[in-house]
């Protein structure tokens, strides 16, 4: 057993020694392992820079080697990157390799190790990996400091659309950290308890000043962040092109791509590289660069334009032959020579573009701003071109440009020259017209002509020649020369016929003659005027064709009809024309234009054919007529406006509108309702005949108020709104009454005068004097007959009145009936002897109230007398003062109730005769004395109510005698 153990030990030792040997043998290639590995970091670029060397190489030995590099994150077992890096290695050469981390290096601890192997065909026996170097740890976190929170990467610059990884490192375990991209919360993954990673994909461009990403703790103000600068994608330059003007300098241009979008962080640079010469230049400008052509006649050029910024590099290429990119300089020494009226020669020189090259030059001739001729000419050095078919006395511009004839690239700039051709004789006869009038037996002809157009004049017109040829005496010619710029002249001729020749002259020659004839007869026969309607385009005039013998027509009009100068215009028309449109900028709306159409005879004599008149645009009448009203009756009135000038209105007056306002709701026949501009309603009469200047408004109401307003109308509308005239129709009967009443008054007056003159007769007939019986002839007759029975009643014969005074005991009240037994006490006012005569002729009457009026009517001298009254006139007058009182009391008290203590007057009347006082009737039958059987007491009314008793008494007195 022990032997077995010893053997085993020996075997193990042998094995160990073998292993040791092997390791020694194998350690030979180990000398080619990477050594002195150093790892540094570039936080801004998130790069790990590795550098190492291989020491055990022979001096001057150079081997191809491959290095395997492993990078782990957080812990060494977590290898995130393995890369084989091949390179040629020299002894003690420092080798470098970089690795860019997607994750900011501050976010996690990284470790790097590497091993090497010879990868060289020279030493195939060494093709095996060396040992790994030890892990080199990169821990940026530990050097961050003591802040509670960090966010990485700082100020990173990326292109729009790229992916970015962000992390935060938190030192505090209590706080929850939230992170936001421009205010929007991001969700990440926890790398370790302190580190959280956010993967941003396809980051957008937000603004030029960068995108804010920040993290903050749930509690407190802890806030940390970064600014992510996102640029727009850097574009390559466009339209890269190069050309030369003088074969010495190349000018290359391009359009830079759109702006990166960041203000300061990204600057662009442009570099031009020519591959054949190997030259390179840094362009100072963003869009162009100059390149000096090498003097060694290099023909081909291959350019590379490189645009570069922090993030990206863009290149464009251009390959060309220099002679194909020639942009010639503008021609020089350009002249226009030998300028005549119709021809001119242009000469010029060009800059040479090589000994054998030809230039193609283009010549353009401009007249009045338009190209009228275009020609191409091949030129070596000197150019020449003849320009033909030019107009005399005309301004032209000629210009020339050139390009490489063999390899067209671009035209040069134009070189321009202006010139004017020489003058020539006028080509056309002036357009002549005339106006004729007869003054004191002479024919005054005013000639008008239109200036020749520039094309016709062929130069500056200096004067016009007018030749008068007397047709009656053909040998007589008269020449007038009228200097330009006159456009007419006035000639006073006798009544003879003349032919007038007018020519225009410039410095070179004379124009053909324009011929017009005048005859003794002005030819202004009476022609009826027709109306013509104008439009915006002018007046369309037409006329009847003249049968034979017409060489043409002329339409004549005035552009300023109201002006004495008139501004005569005319238009020549061919013999086959029977209509034309006359248009002019001078035509104004509301102006009446008169047109005359003349035929031109074969003898060149114009004669009037037709007259037309019209408005280019009719307007509403400018004013309203002054209307006079007449013949006003109860039912009608007449309006007239004879002075109204319808011809001077700015349109043809087609009629008149009469507006009538009345209180009547309905419009009268012949009128219709109309609403005025002030919304008032009235009746409208339409007078269709423009020549009618009176109108009778009929069927009116008498004694009614009317208002009227008359306005003319044209085809456009009515005249201006004016004031209404007020009229009131008279009453229907007033005039009848006047006719009746006046004669009546007259006849009454006549009757009155007649009556006055015949008053005596009238009196006798109507109211004769009442005969006095005492003076009557009857009395004498009676007396003569001695008839004692027939007497005339005398007042004295009447029994006078007596007043009964009744005394009553005070405090007793007795009715009238009760007083009857009481014996009345009679007071006799008048002492009469006849009172005792006993029963006499008397009529007894009973009346409870005594009315003074009754007594008046009777006039018998029955005078009511108060007890105190004296039988005198004065006493009666005095007593009247108590009258109203007594009356009142008597009316208050009933007849049967007489207040106690009062003294009543009972009136006892005893009439001698009932006929007493009746003057109108004669006492034919004297009353018989009758028994006065009964006399009743009468209640007297005090005097105050009665007529003055004095009069009664006087009357009585009168009758007494």
């Amino acid at each position, binding site marked *: 057993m022990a032997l077995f153990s010893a053997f085993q030990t020996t075997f193990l030792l042998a094995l160990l020694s073998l292993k040791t040997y092997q390791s020694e043998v194998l350690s030979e290639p180990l000398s080619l392992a990477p050594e002195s590995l150093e790892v540094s970091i570039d936080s801004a670029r998130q790069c790990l820079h590795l550098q190492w060397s291989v020491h055990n190489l022979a001096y001057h030995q150079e081997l191809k080697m491959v290095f395997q590099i492993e990078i782990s994150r957080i812990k060494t077992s977590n290898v995130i990157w393995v890369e084989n890096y091949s390179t040629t290695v020299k002894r003690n050469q420092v080798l470098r390799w970089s690795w860019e981390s997607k994750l900011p290096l501050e976010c996690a601890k990284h470790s790097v190790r590497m091993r090497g192997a010879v990868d060289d065909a020279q030493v195939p026996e060494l093709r095996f990996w060396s040992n790994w170097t030890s892990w080199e740890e990169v821990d940026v976190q530990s050097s961050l400091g003591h802040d509670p929170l960090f*966010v990485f990467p*700082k*100020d990173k610059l990326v292109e729009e659309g790229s992916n970015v990884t962000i992390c935060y490192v938190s030192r505090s375990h209590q706080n929850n950290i939230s992170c*936001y991209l*421009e*205010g929007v919360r991001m969700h990440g993954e926890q790398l370790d308890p302190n580190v959280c990673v956010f993967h941003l994909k396809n980051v957008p461009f*937000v*603004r*030029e*000043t*960068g*995108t*804010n990403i*920040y993290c*903050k703790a749930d509690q*407190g*103000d*802890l*806030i*940390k*962040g*970064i*600014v992510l*600068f996102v640029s727009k994608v850097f574009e390559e330059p466009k339209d890269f092109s190069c050309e030369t003007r003088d074969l010495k300098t190349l000018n290359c241009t391009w359009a830079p791509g759109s702006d990166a979008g960041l*203000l*300061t962080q990204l600057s662009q640079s442009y570099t031009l590289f020519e591959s054949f010469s190997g030259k390179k230049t840094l362009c100072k400008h963003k869009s162009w660069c100059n390149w000096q052509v090498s003097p060694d006649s290099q023909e081909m050029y291959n350019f590379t334009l490189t645009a570069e910024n922090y993030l990206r590099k863009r290149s464009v290429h251009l390959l060309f032959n220099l002679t194909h990119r020639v942009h010639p300089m503008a021609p020089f020494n350009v002249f226009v020579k030998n300028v005549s009226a119709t021809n001119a020669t242009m000469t010029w020189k060009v800059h040479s573009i090589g000994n054998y090259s030809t230039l193609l030059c283009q010549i353009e001739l401009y007249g009045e701003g338009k190209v009228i001729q275009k020609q191409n000419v091949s030129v070596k050095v000197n150019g020449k071109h003849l320009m033909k078919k030019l107009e005399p006395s005309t301004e032209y511009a000629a210009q020339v440009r050139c390009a490489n004839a063999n390899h067209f690239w671009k035209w040069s700039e134009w070189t321009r020259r202006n010139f004017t051709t020489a003058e020539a004789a006028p080509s056309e006869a002036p357009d002549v017209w005339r106006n004729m009038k007869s003054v004191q037996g002479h024919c005054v002809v005013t000639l008008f002509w239109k200036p020749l157009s520039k094309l016709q004049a062929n130069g500056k017109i200096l004067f016009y020649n007018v030749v008068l040829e007397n047709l009656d005496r053909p040998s007589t010619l008269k020449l007038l020369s009228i200097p330009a710029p006159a456009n007419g002249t006035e000639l006073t001729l006798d009544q003879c016929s003349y032919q007038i020749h007018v020519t225009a002259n410039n410095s070179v020659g004379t124009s053909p003659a324009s011929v017009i004839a005048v005859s003794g007869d002005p030819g202004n026969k009476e022609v009826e005027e027709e109306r013509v309607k104008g439009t915006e385009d002018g007046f369309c005039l037409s006329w009847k064709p003249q049968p034979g013998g017409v060489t043409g027509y002329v339409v004549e009009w005035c552009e300023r009809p109201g002006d004495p100068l008139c501004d005569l215009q005319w238009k020549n028309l061919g013999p086959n024309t029977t209509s034309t449109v006359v248009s002019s900028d001078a035509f104004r709306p509301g102006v009446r234009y008169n047109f005359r159409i003349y035929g031109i005879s074969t003898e060149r004599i114009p004669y009037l054919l037709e007259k037309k008149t019209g408005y280019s645009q009719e307007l509403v009448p400018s004013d309203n007529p002054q209307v006079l009203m007449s013949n006003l009756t109860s039912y009608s009135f007449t309006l007239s406006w004879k002075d109204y000038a319808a011809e001077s209105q700015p349109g043809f007056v087609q009629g008149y509108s009469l507006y009538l306002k009345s209180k009547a709701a309905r419009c009268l026949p012949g009128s219709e309702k109309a609403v005025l501009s002030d919304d008032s309603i009235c009746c409208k009469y339409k007078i269709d005949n423009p020549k009618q200047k009176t109108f009778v408004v009929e069927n009116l109401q008498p004694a009614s108020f009317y208002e009227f307003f008359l306005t003319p109308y044209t085809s456009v509308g009515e005249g201006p709104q004016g004031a209404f005239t007020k009229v009131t129709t008279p009453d229907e009967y007033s005039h009848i009454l006047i006719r009746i009443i006046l004669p009546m008054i007259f006849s009454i007056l006549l009757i009155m005068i007649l009556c006055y003159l015949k008053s005596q007769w009238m009196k006798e007939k109507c109211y004769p004097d009442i005969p006095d019986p005492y003076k009557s002839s009857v009395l004498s007759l009676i007396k003569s007959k001695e008839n004692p029975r027939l007497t005339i009643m005398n007042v004295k014969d009447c029994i006078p009145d007596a007043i009964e005074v009744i005394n009553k005991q005070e405090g007793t009240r007795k009715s009238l009936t009760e007083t009857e037994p009481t014996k009345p006490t009679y007071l006799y006012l008048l002492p009469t002897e006849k009172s005792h005569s006993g029963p006499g002729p008397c009529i007894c009457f009973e009346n409870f109230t005594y009315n003074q009026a009754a007594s008046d009517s009777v006039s018998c001298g029955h005078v009511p007398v108060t007890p105190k009254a004296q039988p005198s006139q004065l006493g009666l007058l005095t007593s009247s003062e108590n009258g109203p009182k007594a009356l009142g009391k008597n009316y208050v008290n009933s007849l049967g109730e007489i207040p106690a203590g009062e003294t009543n007057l009972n009136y006892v009347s005893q009439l001698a005769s009932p006929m007493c006082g009746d003057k109108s009737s004669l006492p034919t039958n004297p009353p018989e004395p009758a028994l006065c059987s009964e006399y009743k007491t009468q209640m007297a009314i005090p005097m105050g109510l009665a007529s003055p008793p004095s009069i009664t008494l006087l009357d009585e007195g009168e009758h007494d005698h």
Partner: protein
Amino acid sequence: MQKNTSTLLQTYLQYQGSPFSDPGFSAPELQLSSLPPAAVSFKTWHALDDGERLGHAQGAFLALTQHLQLVGDDQRDLNPGSPILLAQLGAARLRAQGLLGNMAAIMTALGLPIHPEEDTLGVVAFGASAFERKCRGYVVTREYGHWTDRAVRDLALLKAKYPG
């Protein structure tokens, strides 16, 4: 001046993007070690004597003028297309310098010692990231407002003590 400080802060925040430009943004705990905070308890402030009070303010405005210059430079880099903000920052710096001059005159009049002008920023100013510079600008513009308010109170108290 107080109104201008408020306008400056609003303008500044408006140009910095989220979260600064978010409505109601405020981070009072953000401070700069190089800039003394204006916030002080009323009791402490009141217990200070005139010399201390003016000395604190003068020191703060000395720091503020330098910080406003720094923020102006930062923003010229970060927001070159914002002339309004840059102009307001420049004007604020001039106002702070003016106030500083006035305070120095008052302190001289009262016979108080004046702080010597010193470099409060040091060398750390240039290494800051863009976001840190934005935060720094926020703290400076905010503290500029607070210190202005405090200086107004300081001077009002001084005026009450030395009327006329």
